[in-house]
């Protein structure tokens, strides 16, 4: 919403300067977005009269001018070819900031002659590129006057950003009212007295089944108007706020829209056949609107129609058919009320943004149809001549009167500031509220017709607070709830920062990627099952962000591919965040997900480079699980990871029926889809599924360190190739759970002289005596038990 200072001053009697007005507007909720103040920039420049211009004694191209500044006569050395005796130009005194040179003007001596100012070109004062000569003003330009004022540039244009509740400030009068309440001058009432009509309108308003969508239509007929260009003052005002002047009648409606927040429309009455009617659009009806586009209307939209066609879209835009032209002689002026929600819906469906829609969808003053028709009539008669009919009116003005109970003490108890009752009453009254001090503690407040946004006591507190200035609310730090704060996050929530920091210490960079991904990629990660389709968006921002990610892996792989394209193929990334299996709350899972792509160990002088492999991912997974106290030894490692992993080189870690984590090489088709050309592994750890440590307080169990040295025994078994290493070591440990603390694989061999389909696995068993040193016989017996247990569990033969 834009306006000029002069326009504002038409409604507000104030001597406040632009800066004060701007600060006040911003503080009271009408945020100033910009001020275009050419007067400020041009302040030093005045109109000067060149009393005499003579040749410089020491320079061919320079002249020595005596300039009458209105205050005194000043000598100026000037290089412009058009400087001449008797001209009027733009004078800048010493000390002025010259926008064109970005320098402060200094007193100078030019080739031996004093120069005490400057005659300026357009470019020098920052108004364009013209630098062929100094500005040459008309002979009647008043010497000594501000150049900006002379040019009409001294009217700063302010733009405010209005919040959707402040429909009352969509007219400049409303802005002035707020400023007056805030102490910046006095609000000037505007003329709304009825204009006497001289005949009955040949067009009479009709309403047909529009109900509350258009509760009231008011109109007047004008005979013998002349629709020429509007006067200069009106054109300048509209131009200053960015509106193109069109014709007097159109300019009047635009002017009232911005001046008072009251949209009006004029029809060329000679083109309206039969009575204008407010009715609902018929399916398929079309109208060519004033913006030059044809719109197909739908039921539920209010239109203004005559006997033949739709002439306007109610509250939104007029139609081309009955639009006014230079030839228009008789017009019908419309001022109606349209429902906010219905107007918004219609405008959105048709995709029309107009000044009328903008106002109606925020709520136009219900009184304004009646006074608006008078304001419009007065301007039409004044600017276009002719005569006006009596008012035609259909429907009822909705009753906007309501009373809100208000306790002035709430300004202190809710607003945190003491504002004396008298001051509160003054603020509310100046804003147009009716104040009835029923009792000192409970007032009855009647909001004005233009403040539909004020619904309750809290709104009234806000009115008082904002006009009183939020700066005046004393600052109070939050009182403590307890002497020391409790933890801000739960143990469950704490897993997230711990997981992030752990993975980062393991060499992975944390990425944050969108929750969306291309649906083609999402399908590769969507778990098979009841809901095999990814969660799709109805209105994605682009085709490649159309699905919610069922796994973070895809986004990380796409990121790795982008990094590879930039020349960085070796990437380790992780993200701890949500993935979406379906649209329910439970379908959103929290996953610590990572990928390693390319070389795990880069080329180095000492050793060979190595590609990432599934065991790198396994190490990441185990580090996370161990950190969170998951019972790593009791987990089942199953080769049943979902389809986005390589079927033979991936695994899931399960606790009972719950999958805690999955990892491994990624499926070649996934890598292809994500354009990954090197080795790639990934992991997903589902943080919410990890069991919480049972709370037994902070104390640890006592350390049970044996007095006796542990001993190690190595075993090598020949087993079927399909037997997992885990099966062997579990069997070995089961031989004596008290004595055996660990069984670690240290060698794996296949091929060579070994029979086909067999492999050799060697592991060492750690035996920890607890009560005494074991005898050789006891160790032998234990070894035999281990061999027997492994043989029983796996069919493996001890290699001798």
């Amino acid at each position: 919403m834009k306006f000029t200072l002069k326009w504002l001053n038409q409604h507000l009697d104030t001597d406040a300067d632009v800066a004060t007005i701007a600060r006040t507007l911003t503080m009271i909720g009408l945020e100033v977005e910009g001020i275009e103040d050419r007067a400020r920039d041009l302040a030093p420049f005045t109109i000067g009269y060149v009393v005499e211009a003579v040749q410089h004694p020491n320079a061919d191209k320079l002249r020595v001018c005596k300039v009458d500044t209105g205050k005194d006569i000043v000598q100026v050395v000037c290089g412009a070819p058009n400087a001449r005796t008797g001209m009027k130009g733009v004078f800048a005194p010493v000390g002025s900031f010259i926008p064109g040179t970005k320098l402060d003007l200094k007193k100078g001596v030019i080739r031996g002659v004093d120069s005490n100012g400057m005659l300026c070109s357009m470019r020098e004062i920052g108004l364009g590129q013209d630098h062929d000569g100094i500005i040459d003003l008309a002979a009647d330009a008043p010497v000594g006057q501000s150049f900006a004022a002379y040019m009409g540039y001294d009217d700063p244009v302010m733009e405010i950003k209005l919040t959707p509740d402040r429909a009352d400030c969509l007219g400049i009068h409303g802005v002035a009212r707020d400023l007056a309440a805030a102490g910046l001058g006095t609000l000037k009432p505007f003329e709304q007295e009825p204009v006497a009509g001289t005949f009955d309108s040949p067009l009479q308003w009709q309403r047909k089944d529009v109900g509350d969508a258009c509760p009231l239509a008011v109109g007047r007929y004008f005979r013998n108007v002349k629709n020429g260009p509007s006067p200069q003052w009106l054109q300048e005002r509209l131009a200053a706020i960015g509106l193109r002047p069109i014709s007097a009648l159109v300019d009047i409606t635009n002017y009232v829209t911005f001046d008072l927040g009251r949209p009006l429309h004029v029809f060329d009455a000679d083109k309206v056949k039969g009575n204008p009617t407010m009715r609902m659009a018929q399916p398929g009806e079309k109208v060519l609107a004033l913006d030059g586009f044809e719109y197909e209307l739908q039921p539920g939209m209010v239109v203004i129609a005559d006997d033949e066609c739709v002439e306007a879209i109610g509250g939104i835009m007029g139609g081309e058919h009955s639009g006014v032209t230079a030839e228009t002689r008789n017009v019908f002026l419309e001022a109606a009320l349209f429902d906010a929600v219905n107007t918004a819906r219609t405008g959105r469906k048709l995709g029309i943004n107009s000044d009328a829609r903008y106002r109606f969808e925020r709520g136009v003053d219900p009184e304004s149809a009646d006074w608006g028709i008078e304001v419009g009539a007065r301007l039409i008669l004044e600017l276009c001549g002719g005569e006006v009919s009596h008012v035609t009116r259909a429907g009822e003005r909705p009753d906007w009167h309501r009373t809100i109970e208000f306790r002035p003490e709430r300004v202190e108890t809710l607003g945190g500031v003491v504002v004396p009752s008298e001051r509160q009453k003054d603020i509310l009254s100046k804003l147009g509220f009716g104040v009835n001090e029923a009792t000192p503690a409970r007032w009855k407040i009647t909001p004005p017709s233009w403040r539909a946004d004020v619904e309750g006591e809290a709104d009234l507190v806000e009115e008082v607070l904002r006009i009183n200035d939020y700066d005046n609310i004393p600052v109070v730090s939050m009182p403590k709830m307890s002497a020391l704060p409790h933890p801000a996050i739960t143990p469950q929530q704490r897993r997230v920062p711990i997981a992030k920091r752990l993975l980062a210490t393991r060499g992975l960079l944390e990425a944050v990627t969108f929750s969306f991904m291309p649906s083609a990629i999402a399908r590769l990660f969507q778990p098979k099952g009841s809901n095999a389709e990814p969660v799709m968006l109805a209105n994605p921002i682009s085709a490649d962000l159309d699905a919610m990610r069922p796994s973070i892996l895809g986004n990380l792989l796409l990121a790795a591919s982008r990094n590879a394209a930039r020349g960085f193929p070796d990437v380790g990334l992780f993200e701890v965040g949500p993935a979406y299996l379906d649209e329910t709350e439970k379908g959103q899972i929290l996953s610590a997900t990572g990928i390693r792509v390319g070389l795990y160990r880069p080329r180095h002088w000492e050793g060979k480079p190595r590609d990432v492999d599934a065991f790198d991912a396994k190490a990441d997974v185990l580090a996370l699980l161990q950190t969170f106290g998951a019972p790593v030894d009791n987990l089942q490692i199953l080769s049943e990871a979902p389809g986005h992993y390589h079927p033979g080189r991936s695994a899931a870690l399960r606790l009972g029926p719950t999958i805690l984590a999955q990892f491994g090489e990624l499926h070649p088709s996934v890598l292809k889809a994500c354009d990954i050309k090197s080795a790639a592994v990934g992991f997903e750890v589902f943080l919410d599924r990890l069991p919480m440590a049972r709370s037994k307080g902070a104390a640890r169990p006592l350390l049970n360190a044996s007095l006796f040295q542990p001993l190690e025994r190595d075993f090598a078994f020949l087993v079927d190739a399909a037997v997992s290493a885990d099966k062997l070591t579990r069997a070995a440990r089961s031989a004596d759970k008290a004595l055996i603390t660990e069984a670690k694989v240290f060698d794996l061999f296949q091929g060579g002289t070994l029979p086909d389909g067999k492999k050799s696995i060697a592991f060492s068993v750690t035996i920890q005596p607890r009560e005494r040193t074991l005898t050789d016989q006891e160790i032998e017996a234990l070894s035999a038990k281990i061999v027997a247990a492994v043989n029983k569990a796996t069919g493996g033969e001890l290699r001798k």
Partner: protein
Amino acid sequence: MQHLGGLKDKWLAAIAGAGALDQLESLRVEALGKKGEVTGLMKTLGSLTPEERKEAGQSLNQLKDALTEAIEARKAALQDQALNQRLKSETLDLTLPARPEVEGRLHPISQTIDEIIAIFGEMGFEVAEGPDIEDDFKNFTALNIPPDHPARQMQDTFYLPKRPGEAEAMVLRTHTSPVQIRTMMSKKPPIRVICPGRTYRSDSDMTHTPMFHQVEGLVVDETTHMGHLKGCLIDFVRAYFGIDDLPVRFRNSFFPFTEPSAEVDIGCDRSGGELKLGQGKDWLEILGSGMVHPKVLANCGIDPTKYQGFAFGMGIERIAMLKYGIPDLRTFFDADLRWLKHYGFVPLDVPSMTGGLTR
């Protein structure tokens, strides 16, 4: 035993002349071994008279001690020599690179969230969370944003396809306010929570991404008023930006879910062509806030005649960009590893109010 002096000199000279440890060992055996010369002399003591034996024994013991000492000294010298010799041959070119270790980094969003939690945690706030896919009621209606209200047009919402039989389609939450709603529906006042999380708006240009992060806060009790709102947020921004005298301005605004409402600006200076936070003549909008609308409280089953409080919300990327001088929002989500290494944080830099928020 008159010749012991010559004997001593002979052996001492031999020991001093020993050039290697094995040679020294041979000398030791020849002199002091079982069949050594000195040992041999010791054996002759038995044939002497007690007086002679006493005198000769003493002399022999002295000789033995002297030789032993000399051998040990020579041995130490030879060992030193050998070690020095070895050390001369043992060199490493330590300009060679160490074995490579990759150091990871934390994303600025994570670090900023941890900072925010550290500060608000000090003020007694707890972290509340909720799902990203929300129903229309919690994202809009409960927050006093009815259907077709112009305020809904303030936010460009992502919708999921409407399911048959569903009155309203599910949405991607446009703010973390639904978490406030969930908190109020499930907890009794007093409430102090902050809600950090992912939020979504259908907007993408230089300064908008379709996903971003917000943190919102909510306080509900019987006495909290707008002065507390100011105090809480002033304390926060000054701690977060580490500027004790950072100017903070509250000005009237509108949000459907708060009444009265305030936008919060912090002071800055743009005069150098560069944005500098702190004292200056310019202001920078940084967050929205207000007293919780009585209708919102009532929508969540909290009696608005008894309880009141405030709420606020701000963009996490935005305050991270301001604090850490990150110029472009869109780069946050690109996972460019050069960016992650440059703007990321060392994992051991855990922000806290006692240890410091920022290094």
